[in-house]
């Protein structure tokens, strides 16, 4: 599983053309993985808002204050090993936004 994290998802000031270009970047990047027949599942995009439940029944609105990068979305890829999966992660647009891709094997 490739998990994408970015410091910010605030695109409220981003012009429309740039948003389109960004959308295209993601589409082309995932399309490239799919073209290799290595896309196993396209995860949903996570919305900006959310809540966090902590021990003791404390509920907070911002789930993201403590971690530097928020989880944005994820995809499932097919790869023989962790290194191959990491190779697929190269070129991910989250990296351009100062974010990261976390590569984690899943149990089947």
């Amino acid at each position, binding site marked *: 599983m490739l998990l994408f994290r970015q410091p910010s998802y605030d695109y409220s000031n981003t012009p429309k053309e740039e948003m389109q270009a960004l959308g295209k970047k993601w589409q082309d990047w995932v*399309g*490239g993985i799919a*073209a*290799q*027949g290595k896309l196993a599942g*396209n995860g949903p995009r996570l919305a900006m808002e959310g809540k966090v439940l902590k021990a003791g029944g404390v509920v907070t609105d911002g789930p993201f204050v403590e971690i530097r990068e928020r989880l944005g979305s994820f995809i499932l890829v097919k790869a023989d090993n962790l290194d191959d999966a990491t190779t697929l992660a190269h070129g991910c647009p989250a990296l351009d936004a100062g974010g990261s891709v976390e590569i984690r094997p899943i149990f089947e």
Partner: protein
Amino acid sequence: MEQAALKQLFQQEFSKMVAVISKIYGLQHIELAEDIVSETFLLATETWAAKGMPPNPAAWLYTVARQQTLYHFRRNRIFTEKVMPELTSRQEKTDEAALDFSLQNIKDSQLQMLFAVCNPAIASEAQIGLALRILCGFGIDEIAEAFLSNKETINKRLFRAKEKLRTENIKMELPPEPEISKRLDNVLHVLYLLFSEGYYSKTQNQILRKDLCLEAMRLCVMLTEYDRTNLPRTNALLALMCFHASRFGARQTEEMSQVLYEQQDPALWDTALISQGMHFLDLSAEGNEISSYHLEARIAYWHCQKADTPEKWEAILQLYNQLLMINYSPSVALNRTFALYKANGQHEALREAEKLKLENNHFYFLLLGELYTGIDDRKAKMNYQQARALAKTQTEKEGIQQKINNLP
């Protein structure tokens, strides 16, 4: 009536009559239905040759088929009464139900037959053969030619398919309401394959190929005429077929190979079919459903646009990206990479192409050859040579050699 017209009439009526008779006899006896119809055609040919054509040939055929069916049935009943008395009551009931060749019953029976033939229990290769025979009225010779196979193989395949109809106890009926949408997917897939069989067929017989495509379209139209099967994806498939068929005259496909090989000749595109395609594409846009047919129809739509604009290739690229996420195939991956080349440029496409590793596919090396041209001509040549070695036909090999010769 000339031979070709007679052949066409028989082909048209074959599927209707087999469907109506099978409705009475059950799919277990589909061979009997085929025999009855064949005998009827034989009688028609003899009688019409001697006395001339009746004013309404179809009505003549139905009347004779009705008599033939009764005759078979009575003969069959003697056998049944002696051997299997328990079946008589059912047979008697059937005897009373005269064959109904009304337009409505023909339509209903054909639709039910379509669902029966496209039952997932039958292997897909046999399914297409059976569809060609039973739904389209093609002769064994023609089916063999379309598959570039021989009559024995086709006969065996059909036999196995009919055996399945029996053993799986497949009935001539529409699936119950909750299942109809899922079963429709199977039917649409078979029609898609049927169309592709014609469109990409290896046979040189152009008339046969076109016939196959038109039959697939006719069956798809049939599905749009019935509320429960007239879904957005049905219209999307029909739109896809229209767009493809519009370029039939130009023998132009969106396959990368063809784009690389042939110069487009839009003058040969059939504009009437393109506007038909637009019509069905509009209908397919109802609701939120996006099937692979939707995506393929839109790709085909863009290929019907003459101007080679950046918008066109960007749209095609995104549609291929989406299509790959729904279902991957090597040819979609190659076509996507070609669109990437047109939309994002040669260098990016080359990087992506190198990752595909489709080592046994000559289109892959053809694409690599094209992408290396101008960047690294030595590698371009190596890839073209690899493509030439893997190409299956002489024409293709010559085409690739041409590209090698054109390299600086």
